Structures are given as structure tokens and as C-alpha cells.
């Protein structure tokens, strides 16, 4: 592959990324850029060229030790649901824009601590960036089969560097407020993450299945190589402890690395995106590691004894088989991994550099008196220059020191340096007593130990193992040997440094924090960080401050950074949120915290505090007073919460009352309708009786036969009246619960048979055939026999009444399952009209299709049946069927289930 050709491909590739970033920036609210998957994939900026190339090298040279870097995060990621959520909340409400901001704010807005954290990060990460550049350069030369040139104008890396610096400084500094989301960068990084994984999987599959014959084949061939078994087993206790420390190290790294903090916290749009990330990101790491081992050992088998750099096996293998396009794909994947790391890291570092080092220690004074436009420009420029400087610095390191160490070792050194922030960082989340002095001491001591046990030996040159300093310790004191400090001789250099630096870091952090109390501001923020969930909605309330301050003074400061209009808008929002009269001139604690927050995104926490403090007069508060105020504000919050709870309860109760009232109204309407129908139904027989009696009374010459018929009318109507009254009373008893059931164990077939017997005459009159299926079945159930007879009688009467005029037929069947007994009564009449299904069991509902001849019914029969069956905990309904006729079904709970519940 020629250099020019590859450069053109690179230029094309980078311009596509530019385009993606540009496109995403414009659509920063669309769901394409704002979804949990983009978030999760952007986290994979964790996998740099180190993962892409370095873990292959490590696996080839020392077996399994490439794994802990991924095992650590996978172990700790489930806790993100709690820890990451908390960090995100703290950062969101306080407008935090970097890990330096986060730590310095917690320890009382400490300018020094912010600067210290920034320096640690730069110290750890810039060489790491240099390493990414080196990997781009090395792999470029492998693909093009050229040699690197010492002339920087002939070196491709120079131009790659410049392009990256331009890209990052343009898209990384779009907003003065550094806590703003940068969708363009994030989307581009997420896309790169997908690409590098896909390309890596492609080469993995190629090596495993095309070069070799699957995993088994590689294993078989590799297992005969020298040291295979020794490299690929975790040997003994000391090896396990090494593993353990590497896991711990990478657990910390996933939180603390500036690029991880940036993608997972600052660029998090929604807390719920974590839910996707906690499965997708570990899955990503697992997928990435599936083929590391086959490629590494595949390379070992192919290039045995040739002394190639094992880091580059993934390029050498396809090249060896003349698969140019594959080689280029792999190169692009590695390039993606490197540049996404460089871009995100340089943005994160530049923000820290400007907000936590340059502004608070440098040009804060000049910002105080300039206009908003000038200030914004200056802040942005400082960040742009910062990004440029950092990338150029990394380039210089790469060029000057020519970095001889493999990708993994420098990456791990960076991890160890960054891990020094762990005690202060996690202390900030969980321990209220942690103090600024403790944090500072811990970090400095930890860093010093790192320097002694790791950086110094590396600087002298690890290759010169003959060095007296390493072999015998300074001045021949063997206890001080940098790799075996105090005689600890069974750990590898990295775990060894992790152990001593973190141990002493943690101990000094804890000891100083416990021995010397921090100032009230630290204590105040400790409260806000640790109990963030309590303060999430009105965190300004938790800020303790006493003194004199005027809103106009603070407003002037705000205007210098936000401009007039945004300041005004922010003030209006604040007044609305806390219900404050806009005519009040003095600022309270809440307003001061609010103003500091507005500035924090622009110039960092420490500078924000300095600027606001310069226009207000603060009274000293003693620590006990702070604690008292905090206690009160906590109580207030609790009271507030109680009030909201009570008001919610009241709302609920009033809702229930409303519903109950509506129910009563509905019942009232139902009752009215019922009474209406009852009076109508009662008046009808009375009317007939009255009319007949009147005729009999007044008319003397009425024929004898007619006289008898009128008298017969009177009798039957009186009976009807009486039946009606009985049924109404019956129903009323059921509905008010006064009706008692006398349950006993009965045979349902027998009950049905005897009921059929009682209506035999009616059946004979209408010439109906009656079929009773399974009539001999002995099915027992608990029921009140007299009441059930009433139900069956009613259903049978209806069936008789409505069955076909000629060839009428009624079919009765009983079935039983584990839960219930079911009785069906079918007649072959006209069937039930669709409109009747719903209302057929209502009181006084009489179907309109009865017009042929008014049936002798009260309209209460089915309503009573329903009551009886439901009092037996059964169900009754009319079945919709396609066959002609009507089917009524009722169920009773099975004898067994009834019995078992009765016990």
C-alpha cells in the first residue's frame, strides 16, 4: 500500500467523521444523537489503541494478563446504577465540567486542589496521548512498509496531529459553558467505537477461521510453543494478587480517567441511559476480547522466532497473506481507537487546564472587567489553545522520547497516576468527614510514591535492569528498592506501585481528614455530595452562607460572562423557582449558590467562587453553626416533603370522595329508575284488577261467562301482584346482604332432575323434548339447594317460554373441572338479541323481542338468579353462540376448592 493511497483513505475517513460530527451537532435534540446506545458506545472510548493493538501484544508475550483491564470494569459496572447516577446528579446540579471541578468543589471550592488534580491528569494522560500518536505512526509505516522519518514535515503523524487538533478544538469548544453537551463529538466517538469493534471482529474471524481452523486449531498449535502453559495459567497466590490489583486499578480507571468522566458524566443526557450502558458496555468489552487470544497466539505461531513486534500482529497477519484491504481495515480500526481517545482526552484536559489552572491562577483578573463578548472569546480561545498545546505536547513527547515501551506499560502507568485521585473522589461521594487537606496530602503522597516506584525506574530505563538504583536501592538500602519497597518482593512493578501508592494515599487522606477538621465550606459541600438525592430538586437550599450581598453586584459579574439577556432570564427563573419578590435587593445563600453555578460551567468552580466572593461580604461561620443550619435545612426539606405528601394524600382522598359521590349519584339514579319501574309493574296488575272489578260492580247485565272471565282476571292479576312483591323483597334481601345462604353438600344432577320434574306439566303443554346430558354423573357442590332450585327453575321457565313453538327442545348439560362446576341450559328458540346480552341480568329488563305475546314475567327473575349465583361465588352469563337458540350458563366453585377454603 502506498503512503499516498493510505493518506487519501485516511483523509476520506476523517472527513466522514467530521461530517458525522457536524450532522449530529445540528441535530443535537434528535433521537438519533440522543439515545442510550450512542451514550453506551461513546463509553467505549475506553478501548484505545492499547486495547486494539496492545492487548494482543500482551497476550502474545505474557498470556492472560491482558484481561484484568476489562474484568475490572465489568465487575464494577453494575454499581453504576447507584454510583454513576449519584455522580451525574451532583455534576448536573453543580454544573461541573470535569473531574477536577468535581473534586475541588467537594473540598470547599479549593482552587489548589482543582489545579493539583488537573496537573495529575495532564501528567498521566499526555504521555498516554503520545502513545496513541506513536501507534498511529507505527501502524502507518507497517501498512505502507515505510520507515518513519525524523523530519517532522515528512512524518504523516504530524499532519494527523494537526487535523485532530483542529477537529477537537473546533467541535470541543462550541460552547463557553463547558458543562454543555457536545453531541457532535459524542456521536462521532460512538460511531468510531462501533467501527473499531467491527473491524477488530473481522480480523479476529479472519485469523481464527480463515488463516487457522477455528479456536481449537490455534490452541493445539500454540500449546506446543514454549511457555504456553506457564503464560496462560494464573500461577499461585502472588500471581492472583497481581491480578487483583490490576482489576482494582481498572475499576478506578473507568470512573477517573478524564475521558471516561467526560463521556459518562458530562455528556450524559439522561440518567436512564445508564440502564442500557450497564449491559451494553460490558458486552462490548467482552466482544472485544473474544479474538485477542486467537490473534495473539496465531501471530506467535506464524511469526515464531522472527522477532516482530507482537503489538502489530493484527496488521502483520493479513499483510503476510497479502490481504491489503483487510490490513487497511484493521489500520482504520486502530486509527479510530487512537483518535477518539486523543480527541476526548484533549477536550477534557483542555477544559480542566483552562477552568482549573489557567483562569483561577492566571487571567481571572482580566476577566473581571471585560465585556461578555471579550470574556467568552478569551475563555474559548484559551481552551482551543489548550487542546492544541496538549496535542502538540503529546506529539513532542512522542517525537523526542521516541517511547520505547510497549503500549500496555505506558497505559498502565497512566492508570496508576490517575488512580491517585480515587480516595479523594470516592471519599467525596461517601464520606462526609473527608477534608481538603486530607485529599491534597493523599494525592501528593500517592503521586510521590508512583514517581518513586514507577516513573523514576521507567525514566532511568527499565531495560537497564543492571541499574544499581533498581537492583540495590538508593545508597544500597535494600528496603528502598523501588520495585520491592519495604521488602515486598512478590508483586510485579505495576501492582506493586498500585499497592503502595494507594495504601499510603488512602491512609494519609483518612488520617489527616480525621485529625484536622476541614472548614465549613467543605463540610457544606460534603453534605450536598453525599446526600445528593435529598437535595436534587432544590440544592441551592443546602448551601450555607452568611453575610451581606447585593443582587445588582452579583448581576454585574454574571453579565460579564452570560451577557445581559441570559442573566436576566436566569434571574427570572430563579425568582420563579423560589417564589422571590423581584424587588428584593439583597442576595441570600440560595442566590449566591445559584450565581456560582451559572459561572461554573464557564470558568470552573474555583474561579466562580473567587469572582462572586469579590463582590460580596461574607461573615465567618463556625463549623457547629454550619452543621446546625444544615440540620435545619434538612428538617425543612423533610417538612416540605411531608407537606407535599400530605397534600398528595388530600388530593387522593378528595379524588376518592369525588368517585364515591359519583357512585352515590349513579346509585341514586339507578334507585329512581328502579322505583319507577317497580311502581309501573305494581300498577299494571292493579289497573287490570280495578277495571275488571269496576265492570263487575257497575254492570248488572253482564253475561255469566264473561263475569267468570273477569273474576279469573282479578285472581290471576292478584297472584301476579303477590309474586312481584315476593321477588322484590327477595332481591332487596340479596342486595342488602340480609339474605342468608344455607350451604350444604348436594348432588347437582339430583337438584336439576327434581326441578325439571316440577315444571313437567309446562313442558308437556308446549310439547317440548328435554335432554339432560350426563344426568347420572355424581357431581357434588356446596350450595343452598332451595336457592339453586330457584335459579334452575327460572332458567328452565325462560327456556320453556322462549323455545321454538313447534319441536321445542331444551338441552341441559353439566361439566366439571378442578375449579368449578358448570351447568348449561340451552333452548332452540329465537335466541338472544345482541343488544340484550349486556342488560339481560338487569332488574326489570324485558327483552323487546317478546312482543308476540307478553310473557308472564316480572323482569326480576334473572336479576335474582345473578344475585343467588354470585352469593355462591359463581358466575352466570348468556353465551354468544352461532347456533340457534339461547344458552344460559352458570358456574359454582368446585366442591373441593370450596371445602378447602371453608376449612
Amino acid at each position, binding site marked *: 500500500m502506498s503512503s499516498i493511497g493510505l493518506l487519501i483513505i485516511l483523509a476520506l475517513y476523517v472527513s466522514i467523521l467530521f461530517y458525522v460530527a457536524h450532522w449530529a451537532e445540528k441535530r443535537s435534540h434528535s433521537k438519533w444523537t440522543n439515545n442510550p446506545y450512542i451514550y453506551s458506545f461513546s463509553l467505549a472510548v475506553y478501548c484505545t489503541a492499547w486495547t486494539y493493538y496492545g492487548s494482543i501484544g500482551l497476550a502474545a508475550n505474557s498470556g492472560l494478563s491482558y484481561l484484568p483491564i476489562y474484568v475490572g470494569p465489568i465487575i464494577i459496572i453494575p454499581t453504576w446504577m447507584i454510583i454513576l447516577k449519584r455522580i451525574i446528579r451532583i455534576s448536573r446540579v453543580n454544573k461541573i465540567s470535569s473531574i477536577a471541578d468535581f473534586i475541588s468543589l467537594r473540598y470547599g471550592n479549593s482552587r489548589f486542589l482543582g489545579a493539583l488534580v488537573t496537573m495529575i491528569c495532564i501528567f498521566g494522560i499526555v504521555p498516554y496521548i503520545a502513545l496513541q500518536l506513536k501507534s498511529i505512526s507505527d501502524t502507518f509505516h507497517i501498512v505502507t512498509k515505510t520507515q518513519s522519518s525524523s523530519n517532522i514535515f515528512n512524518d504523516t503523524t504530524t499532519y494527523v496531529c494537526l487535523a485532530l487538533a483542529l477537529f477537537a478544538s473546533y467541535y470541543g469548544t462550541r460552547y463557553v459553558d463547558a458543562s454543555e453537551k457536545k453531541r457532535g463529538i459524542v456521536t462521532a466517538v460512538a460511531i468510531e467505537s462501533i467501527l473499531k469493534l467491527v473491524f477488530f471482529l473481522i480480523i479476529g474471524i479472519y485469523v481464527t477461521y480463515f488463516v487457522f481452523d477455528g479456536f481449537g486449531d490455534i490452541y493445539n498449535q500454540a500449546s506446543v510453543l514454549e511457555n504456553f502453559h506457564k503464560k496462560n495459567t494464573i500461577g499461585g497466590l502472588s500471581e492472583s494478587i497481581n491480578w487483583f490489583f490490576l482489576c482494582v486499578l481498572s475499576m478506578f480507571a473507568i470512573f477517573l480517567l478524564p475521558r471516561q468522566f467526560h463521556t459518562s458524566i458530562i455528556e450524559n443526557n439522561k440518567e436512564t441511559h445508564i440502564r442500557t450502558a450497564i449491559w451494553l458496555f460490558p458486552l462490548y468489552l467482552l466482544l472485544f476480547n473474544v479474538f485477542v487470544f486467537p490473534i495473539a497466539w496465531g501471530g506467535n505461531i506464524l511469526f515464531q522466532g522472527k522477532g516482530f513486534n507482537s503489538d502489530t500482529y493484527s496488521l502483520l497477519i493479513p499483510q503476510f497473506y497479502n490481504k491489503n484491504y483487510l490490513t487497511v481495515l484493521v489500520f482504520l480500526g486502530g486509527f479510530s481507537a487512537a483518535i477518539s481517545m486523543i480527541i476526548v482526552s484533549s477536550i477534557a484536559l483542555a477544559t480542566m487546564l483552562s477552568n482549573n489552572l489557567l483562569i483561577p491562577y492566571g487571567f481571572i483578573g482580566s476577566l473581571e472587567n471585560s465585556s461578555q463578548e471579550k470574556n467568552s472569546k478569551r475563555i474559548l480561545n484559551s481552551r482551543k489553545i489548550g487542546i492544541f498545546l496538549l496535542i502538540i505536547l503529546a506529539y513532542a513527547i512522542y517525537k523526542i522520547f521516541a517511547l520505547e515501551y510497549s503500549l500496555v506499560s505506558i497505559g498502565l502507568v497512566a492508570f496508576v497516576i490517575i488512580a491517585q485521585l480515587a480516595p479523594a473522589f470516592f471519599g467525596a461521594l461517601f464520606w462526609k468527614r473527608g477534608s481538603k487537606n486530607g485529599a491534597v496530602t493523599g494525592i501528593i503522597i500517592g503521586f510521590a510514591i508512583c514517581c518513586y516506584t514507577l516513573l523514576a525506574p521507567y525514566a532511568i530505563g527499565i531495560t537497564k535492569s543492571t541499574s544499581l538504583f533498581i537492583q540495590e536501592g538508593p545508597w544500597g538500602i535494600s528496603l528502598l528498592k523501588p520495585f520491592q519497597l519495604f521488602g515486598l518482593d512478590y508483586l510485579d512493578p505495576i501492582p506493586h506501585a498500585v499497592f503502595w501508592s494507594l495504601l499510603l494515599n488512602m491512609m494519609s487522606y483518612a488520617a489527616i481528614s480525621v485529625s484536622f477538621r476541614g472548614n465549613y465550606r467543605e463540610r457544606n459541600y460534603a453534605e450536598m455530595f453525599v446526600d445528593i438525592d435529598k437535595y436534587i430538586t432544590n440544592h441551592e437550599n443546602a448551601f450555607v452562607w452568611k453575610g451581606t450581598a447585593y443582587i445588582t453586584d452579583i448581576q454585574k459579574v454574571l453579565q460579564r460572562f452570560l451577557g445581559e439577556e441570559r442573566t436576566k432570564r436566569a434571574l427570572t427563573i430563579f425568582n420563579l423557582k423560589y417564589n422571590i419578590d423581584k424587588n428584593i435587593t439583597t442576595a441570600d445563600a440560595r442566590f449566591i449558590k445559584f450565581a456560582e453555578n451559572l459561572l461554573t460551567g464557564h470558568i470552573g468552580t474555583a474561579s466562580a467562587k473567587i469572582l462572586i466572593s469579590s463582590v460580596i461580604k461574607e461573615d465567618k461561620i463556625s463549623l457547629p453553626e454550619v452543621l446546625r443550619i444544615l440540620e435545619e435545612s434538612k428538617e425543612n426539606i423533610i417538612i416540605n416533603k411531608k407537606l407535599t405528601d400530605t397534600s398528595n394524600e388530600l388530593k387522593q382522598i378528595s379524588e376518592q370522595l369525588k368517585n364515591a359521590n359519583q357512585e352515590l349519584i349513579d346509585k341514586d339514579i339507578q334507585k329512581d329508575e328502579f322505583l*319507577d319501574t317497580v*311502581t*309501573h309493574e305494581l*300498577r*299494571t296488575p*292493579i*289497573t*287490570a*284488577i*280495578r*277495571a*275488571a272489578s*269496576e*265492570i263487575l260492580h*257497575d*254492570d248488572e247485565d253482564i253475561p255469566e261467562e*264473561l263475569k267468570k*272471565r*273477569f273474576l279469573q*282476571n282479578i285472581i*290471576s*292479576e292478584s297472584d301476579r301482584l303477590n309474586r312481584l312483591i315476593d321477588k322484590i323483597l327477595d332481591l332487596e334481601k340479596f342486595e342488602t346482604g340480609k339474605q342468608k345462604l344455607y350451604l350444604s353438600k348436594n348432588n347437582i344432577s339430583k337438584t336439576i332432575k327434581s326441578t325439571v320434574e316440577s315444571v313437567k306439566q309446562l313442558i308437556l303443554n308446549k310439547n317440548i323434548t328435554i335432554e339432560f346430558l350426563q344426568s347420572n354423573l355424581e357431581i357434588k357442590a356446596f350450595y343452598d339447594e332451595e336457592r339453586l332450585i330457584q335459579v334452575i327453575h327460572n332458567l328452565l321457565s325462560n327456556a320453556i317460554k322462549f323455545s321454538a313453538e313447534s319441536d321445542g327442545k331444551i338441552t341441559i348439560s353439566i361439566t366439571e373441572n378442578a375449579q368449578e362446576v358448570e351447568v348449561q341450559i340451552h333452548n332452540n328458540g329465537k335466541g338472544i338479541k345482541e343488544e340484550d346480552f349486556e342488560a339481560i341480568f338487569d332488574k326489570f329488563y*324485558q*327483552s*323487546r*323481542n*317478546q*312482543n308476540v305475546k*307478553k310473557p308472564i314475567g316480572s323482569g326480576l327473575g334473572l336479576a335474582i338468579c345473578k344475585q343467588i349465583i354470585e352469593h355462591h361465588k359463581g358466575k352466570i352469563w348468556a353465551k354468544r353462540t352461532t347456533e340457534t337458540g339461547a344458552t344460559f350458563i352458570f358456574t359454582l366453585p368446585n366442591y373441593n376448592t370450596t371445602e378447602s377454603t371453608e376449612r
Partner: protein
Amino acid sequence: MRKILIVDDEPNIVMSLEYTFKKNNFEVFIARDGQEALDILQKQLPDIIILDVMMPMVDGFATLEQIKKDERLQNCKVIFLSAKNKEKDIEKGLSLGANLYVVKPFSVKKLVEQVHDLLQ
């Protein structure tokens, strides 16, 4: 001979009315619901209709509305006969154009008098 149409779904009440009006020299027609009444009215032109309100299918109110639409029946008197004795029912019946609203139970003698009065 005067013609009367009795519309009610209660056979026993109809029987009393039929007997009474026949005795009073009316030609009596009987319908058991609104639809049947409308069918009879196609062929017959009674002088007076006695109409129950609560009936299956087409009720009394709906029947009267149909009657009022028929020009031939403009001079036909209508008496509602109903167990619905609420003021709003009576008002509704009269507003639809009935000449009288008689509440059940009623006096047969008095009803005959009222019919005679209406037909004078």
C-alpha cells in the same frame, strides 16, 4: 258508529276496555304494541285512540309521533293511558299532541265519559 283503537300490551286491561267500549256502541280495534297500532291505522281511521306508554318495541310516545305525521289522522283524538304518573311524563305526553293523559289505575266509567267529552 264511532271507532276506537285500543293499544296496550296487557291483555287483561285490554279485555276490560274492549268490553266497556263495545257496550258503549264503539267499533273496537285492538293492538298489542305501537307497530301493530300503526299497521291497523293504515287501514282504519278511528275517531279516538287509547294509547299505553310503556310497551315493547315501539312505545306510546314514539307511536304518537308517527300518528302526528300522518295527515289522514289529523282529526283523530288521542288519550294516553299510562302507569307513568310523573309530571314530566304527563307534560311530555301532552306536548307531543295528546288530547288527554290518564293515569293508571283509572276508572272505566270516567274514561268513557272523557272519551265522550272529547268526541262532542
